[in-house]
């Protein structure tokens, strides 16, 4: 289907089902139960899962296929967001021109930065990209937000003001990002017994976009171009002596992943029309690296899983405070309750970083292929297959999923 083989088609269908049904899947617990704390099916977080998924899919096209580890991809995300908000400020709150411009501008910047950075390889390349991104961040945070020439609005983040031109804005259109009048914030809530599910317009826009770019990523992975990118990672020497110029291939991959990042940034602004400079900081670049490795470098679905994993911890674990803990363990005798809460306390709420750090280590120690490998092992274990040779990618002209 759609020019994909059977295996990829089923992968695409699974991803499509998971994203479309996410409001159900992510809200497995009744809204009033103690476990509702673990529900992730509210619009903001669902949007984040998908947007960071797009970011990571794009990053993986560069890093997973060519092996070039960029430490500055957050810059393109930030540039995408700034472009989108500028579209909101100048034209209107319609998300289409905003997202389109964010892809184009991020593409242009990645062409420029990629052209320069790709003159070097290995860690030298990583540091060049890091340097460009950190410069962008520093300038966006301060110099480019000075009152005379305020391009980024610095610390607060770029936002739309009432006195902005918005030349295409008309009466009756929402004062928030919208798709031809459909506000990105509009949400339809479905209640089934004790359960409650949110269907948010913005989320579904992101989900559709993600399915499209996921499909494109599969096409890239399975294309001759994709093989060339993997050849770059495997052996550049052989590649050059085989009559292939590796530079434009890596640059193309860099620009594609930069455009994915720009798209993610544009969507982020479309969901919430404020672009903060922090999303360009090195920690944000590092985050997408971690997402990709954590999920499974070079696999199609891995980066999306990694993105979901990190965002889940950031948004869910950070909100578990002591009173929530006491609520959960209220059934225990008092002394026991306090003890359990005291033991868990360092790992949740303000300690969510600690839990995340520990999980990073556990995953990379025990699952060298990331979460995807964990999934494969689980499936193999369920199927009762013998492990070993069958795990090794074989009989395929594509990388393992």
């Amino acid at each position, binding site marked *: 289907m759609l*020019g*994909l*083989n059977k295996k990829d088609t089923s992968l695409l269908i699974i991803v499509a089902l998971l994203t479309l049904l996410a409001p159900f899947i992510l809200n497995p617990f009744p809204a009033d139960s103690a476990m509702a704390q673990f529900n992730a099916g509210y619009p903001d977080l669902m949007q984040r899962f998908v947007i960071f998924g797009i970011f990571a899919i794009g990053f993986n096209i560069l890093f997973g296929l060519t092996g070039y580890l960029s430490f500055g991809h957050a810059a393109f995300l930030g540039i995408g967001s700034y472009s989108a908000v500028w579209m909101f400020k100048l034209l209107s709150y319609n998300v289409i021109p905003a997202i389109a411009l964010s892809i184009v501008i991020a593409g242009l910047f990645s062409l420029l930065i990629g052209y320069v950075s790709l003159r070097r390889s290995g860690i030298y390349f990583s540091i060049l990209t890091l340097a460009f991104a950190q410069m962008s961040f520093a300038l966006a945070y301060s110099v480019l937000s000075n009152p005379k020439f305020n391009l980024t609005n610095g610390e607060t983040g770029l936002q739309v003001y009432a006195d902005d031109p918005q030349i295409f804005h008309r009466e009756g259109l929402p004062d928030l990002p919208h798709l031809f009048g459909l506000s990105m914030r509009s949400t339809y809530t479905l209640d089934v017994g004790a359960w409650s599910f949110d269907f948010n317009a913005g989320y579904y826009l992101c989900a559709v976009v993600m399915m499209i770019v996921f499909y494109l990523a599969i*096409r*890239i992975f*399975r*294309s*001759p*171009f*994709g*093989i*060339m990118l*993997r*050849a770059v*990672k*495997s*052996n550049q*020497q*052989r*590649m*050059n*002596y*085989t*009559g*292939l*110029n*590796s530079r*434009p*291939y890596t640059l*193309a991959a860099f620009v*594609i992943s930069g455009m994915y990042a720009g798209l993610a940034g544009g969507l982020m602004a479309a969901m919430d029309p404020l672009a903060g400079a922090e999303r360009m900081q090195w920690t944000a670049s590092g985050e997408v690296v971690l997402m990709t490795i954590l999920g499974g470098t070079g696999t199609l679905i891995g980066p999306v899983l990694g993105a979901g994993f990190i965002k889940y911890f950031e948004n869910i674990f950070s909100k578990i405070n002591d009173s929530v803990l006491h609520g959960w363990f209220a059934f225990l005798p008092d002394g026991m309750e306090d003890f359990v809460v005291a033991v868990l306390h360092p790992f949740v709420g303000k300690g969510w970083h600690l839990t995340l750090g520990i999980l990073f280590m556990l995953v990379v120690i025990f699952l060298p292929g990331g979460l995807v490998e964990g999934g494969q092992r689980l499936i193999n274990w369920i199927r009762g297959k013998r492990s070993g040779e069958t795990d*090794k*990618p*074989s*009989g*395929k*002209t594509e990388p393992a999923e």
Partner: protein
Amino acid sequence: MGILEVKDVGKRFGGLQALSNVNLSVKENTVHAIIGPNGAGKSTLLNCLVGKLIPDTGSVMFDGQSVLGRAPYEINQMGISRVFQTPEIFGELTVMENMLIPIFAMRDGAFRMHAYETVENEREVIEQAEQMLEEMGMADKRHMHSASLSRGDKRRLEIAMCLSQKPRLLLLDEPTAGMARADTNNTIDLLKQISDERDITIAIIEHDMHVVFSLADRITVLAQGTPLVEDEPQNIRGNPKVREAYLGETA
């Protein structure tokens, strides 16, 4: 006029004159060997031919066109393929994928953004690759990860990749270095077969006399960066200058 003409090539690294006054002519459809003791400048010469190094003086012409100043991939596109001393293949890719890459390179040139096509639909390319694997006796290994091939098979794969581009000149850099006797003999047989069956010129750089005398139609002996003799194999065998160069090295 040979297909490859090297004229007055010189190359200096700091205080070391690695090559001087190298003149060499490789005739079409022959096997030409370049031999010499360690440090004679064989590898430097090879690197000058494929674009990795640019000589300080002289010229290198392939089929009437200069290769100097061109990048390795451009020289390859002119019709020169190179086999490395240790097999250089795409270790993380399957044998089949390894085969596809040179064929794509031949068909599409140094760069093409064919990102939306699917490899599986490239029937013609796949057929060519399969045929080449068949000819090289590796068809049953097409789905293996190439990194897990034996050393001999890696060499075979690398040669297959080069041949699939139908090069006019195949450059081999000590193709049997570090191989066991049996593997060496297999490789000799393979190369013999290739030179007999195909319309191809082979230039081979080699240390091992056994290999050279089994294969070469013509031999150039290099010593201290400059050609000592160029002749047919039977004449090289008894040449006192060659003996001296080699004995001098062992002494």
